[in-house]
């Protein structure tokens, strides 16, 4: 079945072997001890494109997809509107079949697009510099923690307990790799260690609520530590950006910016910082320069931070990252513009508050916090969330995240511009019918 992708015919293979001066391909493999070669591989037999499209179609149909189900689930992956133009641009094969732009002269498309990306991300976050993107929001946060330790020459990081618990786990993996340590800080307490390299806070936090970031910036800086802020990029359509409240490093999950929810990946980590920390930044960075004729052009720059130049002294091991998703975010932000991103944020905000208000009127239900929130919030239910989500699923709705292990009978709900009033009303009606007893 290889013929479509292996163009050499038997005849040309024969000619090539002759030119090489051997009789068979086996002769080319003489350095591999015989006993390791031609071993048995227990794999399913090959199938044609048509057969496989049918088979994969069947597999895909086993999944409940969000074209068919209304969705009130967020918690790190979000369903937002993606203008068609995004997909059409990133499906241009000049973009997606290229590799990292090592050869700048024939990679100006990728390089200029990354320069636009870095610019748009700086505008959105109010931060001074952005890299070309990381794997996802959680690894961006983890690399930020490590970067802070290297900048501050301290071996301890603090994470607020309202940060996404999975992010805390990923930060833990990266920080402990370097033999640094991590501490979780109770948001209700004023006690925290002072010898930390950074304080990591999420805005809005994992439960959707808006934190007082000025307070945390002050606290971090009082300790001589950096403030690492994890933000929702869509929220920045209306909320104060990290650059305005003193964040030293700001990271985000970039998936809401034009990337399909895709069962958790491929995603994109936004990574920005203050200019003074530029040379400690992980990942690729693109800069503007000129060619020998003085014409403007773009190159990968600050490469002495990187593994392919600096090896064991590199700031990170990033090689292949998520360039195509950074392109998607670029097209998305260009398409929405400043009005669009604000409008999306407002739609999320108002619809989420409408849903919360309607749910709070239901007997037995309450909205948990008095803090302001953006597009996610916690509801306490009269019966077990598991039962509620099962009932919702039966009605074609993916319910919120069951957080009852940590908070009794609670669900973290997410409402975006994708949820129509009709959907919200249906959600409320079904919840209303589930009163327990």
């Amino acid at each position, binding site marked *: 079945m*290889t013929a479509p*992708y292996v163009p*050499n015919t038997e005849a040309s293979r024969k000619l*090539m072997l002759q030119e*090489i001066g051997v009789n068979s391909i086996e002769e080319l493999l003489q350095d591999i001890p015989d006993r390791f070669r031609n071993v048995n591989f*227990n*794999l399913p037999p*090959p199938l044609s*494109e048509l057969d*496989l*499209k049918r088979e*994969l179609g*069947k597999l*895909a149909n086993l*999944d409940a997809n969000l074209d068919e189900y209304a969705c009130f689930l967020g918690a790190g*992956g979000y369903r937002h509107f993606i203008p068609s*133009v995004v997909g059409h*641009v990133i499906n241009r094969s*000049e973009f*997606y*079949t*290229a*590799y990292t732009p*090592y050869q700048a*002269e*024939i990679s*100006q498309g990728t390089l*200029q697009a990354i*320069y636009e990306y870095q610019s748009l991300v*700086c505008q959105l976050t109010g931060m001074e510099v952005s890299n070309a993107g990381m794997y996802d929001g*959680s*690894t961006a946060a983890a690399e930020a923690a490590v970067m802070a330790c290297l900048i501050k020459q301290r071996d301890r990081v603090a994470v607020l307990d309202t940060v996404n618990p999975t992010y805390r*786990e990923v930060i833990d*993996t990266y920080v402990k*790799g370097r033999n640094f340590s991590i501490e979780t800080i109770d948001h209700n307490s004023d006690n925290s260690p002072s010898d930390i390299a950074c304080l990591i806070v999420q805005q809005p936090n994992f439960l959707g609520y808006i934190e007082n970031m000025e307070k945390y910036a002050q606290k971090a800086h009082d300790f001589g530590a950096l403030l690492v802020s994890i933000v929702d990029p869509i929220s920045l359509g*209306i909320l*104060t950006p990290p650059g305005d409240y003193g964040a030293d490093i700001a990271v985000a999950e970039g998936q809401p910016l034009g990337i399909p*929810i*895709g*069962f958790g990946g*491929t*995603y994109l980590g936004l990574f920005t910082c203050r200019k003074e920390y530029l040379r400690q930044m992980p990942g690729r960075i693109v800069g503007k*320069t*000129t060619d*020998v004729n003085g*014409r403007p*052009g773009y190159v990968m*720059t600050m490469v002495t931070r990187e593994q*392919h*130049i600096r090896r064991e002294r590199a700031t990170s*091991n990033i090689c*292949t990252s*998520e360039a*195509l998703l950074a392109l998607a975010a670029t*097209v998305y932000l*260009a*398409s*929405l513009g400043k009005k669009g991103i604000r409008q999306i944020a407002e739609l999320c*905000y108002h619809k989420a508050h*409408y849903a919360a208000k309607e749910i709070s009127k239901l007997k037995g239900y309450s909205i948990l916090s008095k803090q302001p929130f953006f597009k996610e919030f916690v509801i306490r239910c009269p019966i077990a969330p598991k039962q509620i989500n099962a009932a919702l699923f039966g009605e074609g709705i993916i319910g919120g995240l069951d957080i009852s292990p940590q908070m009794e009978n609670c669900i973290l709900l997410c409402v975006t511009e994708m949820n129509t009033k009709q959907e919200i009303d249906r959600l409320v009606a079904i919840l209303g019918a589930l009163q327990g007893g």
Partner: protein
Amino acid sequence: MNHYLLPDISEPGKTGCSLPALDVAPAESLPKELLREEFELPEVSEVEIVRYFTALSSLNYGVDSGFYPLGSCTMKYNPKWHEDVAGLPGFALVHPLQPVESVQGALQLMFELQDYLSEINGMDSTSLVPMAGAQGEFACLLMVKAFHQDRGDKNRNKIVIPDSSHGTNPASAVMCGFEVVTVPSDKEGNIDFNMLEAVMNEEVAALTLTMPNTLGLFDPQITEISQLVHERGALLGADGANLNALLGNVKYGDLGYDYVQLNLHKTFSTPHGGGGPGAGPVCVKTHLTDFLPSPLVTKDNGEYVFISPANSTGKLCDFYGNFGVMVKAYAYLRFLGAEGLKEVSNNAVLNANYIKEKLKKYYHLPYDRKCMHEVVFSGKSQMAKGVHTLDIAKRLMDFGFHPPTVYFPLNVQEAIMIEPTETESKETLDAYIQAMIDIAREAEENPEILHTSPHNTPVRRLDSVKAARQPELNWSMYMSSKKRETGTKETEL
């Protein structure tokens, strides 16, 4: 060349999309101190966005544009229908935290892919989580660290790598708190066994040995190496960047490796995306299974579920890795089957050896023996005329080819690393070979044309020193201060 940027075509009132009106009663506004002030993003119409990015795409060179023999990167053709299946709503429009019973298709695909990758590599289990090769390396070395610590062997703080290794190898080792010990290659291009023997002490946690190595050579000492490493209590790990040489023929597990990290975007044909997304699954033998990054997919009473290994080295990303990439790799494997995989590696090896034989009269070949899927030349014969490998690479662009990897591996002076892959025809290889021969002649007769190359590209050689010394990393200064010059707007390409 596309000189203008988005702000140059931005104008108040333009927009690239339409959004629905608010269909609920508006809520009370947030307190003013939480709200951001006016900010700037470009305002551009949809048609301008499409033309702008289409113009940018035309400045790029991808595998679909032509031959892309970037050594170590396995730039093979990316089958089109893979894009279609990865975009099916049941894969692309599924929330990662949906109840498992509503994502059984996605989980079945992951479960089977784990199995296939274990089988292909002769390993016992696989985690698909790492999001790129470098993160896979990081995951492997975290497992190495945990494995030794779990056995109470706490002094193993060194990772041994050959001098030909990828830059990610030492960088990943440092991320796991290890020190790096480098071992030179011998005059055959293999690892210097005596030197290896000398450094393999009780402080060494693992040897990371790319196989075939980055010179494109299979190290015939592999059995002795594996025996030595294990006798000394260390583990043997593969950077699987070069699996395309062995696919369907040889299993890393049989060679004595304890673990391997793969690159689905190299070996398994998923597109490189201009620098990602990739995926870097890790496959291990039984003694490392408990340490794999979380989660794995398993089958329990007929239902697919996620589990976390007993002593997992932890989470590496928010969810399960780059699922979209997994779908494409799965499609590729099922299409090829075992025999197809072997044809892939056989043809990759044939193509590389063909280039080697045809070009060795013209370029210095530091290790003249049968190569595997890639061949490394040196540009040092051309240096007599003041021509460097960089000039040769740049000149290739004028001939319509993507240059090979250059100045890597580091143990070859003026290295030119060519990896043709199996997806190229003899005709393409012949055209490339002819271009390389023509360039070798030019280096003799007219070196200036190489020094000033490329001549036919959208831009000429760019000033990297200036870019690094006076970093200009975004236009956002313009948006806030409105100071950016607007005189550079050019619409022709």
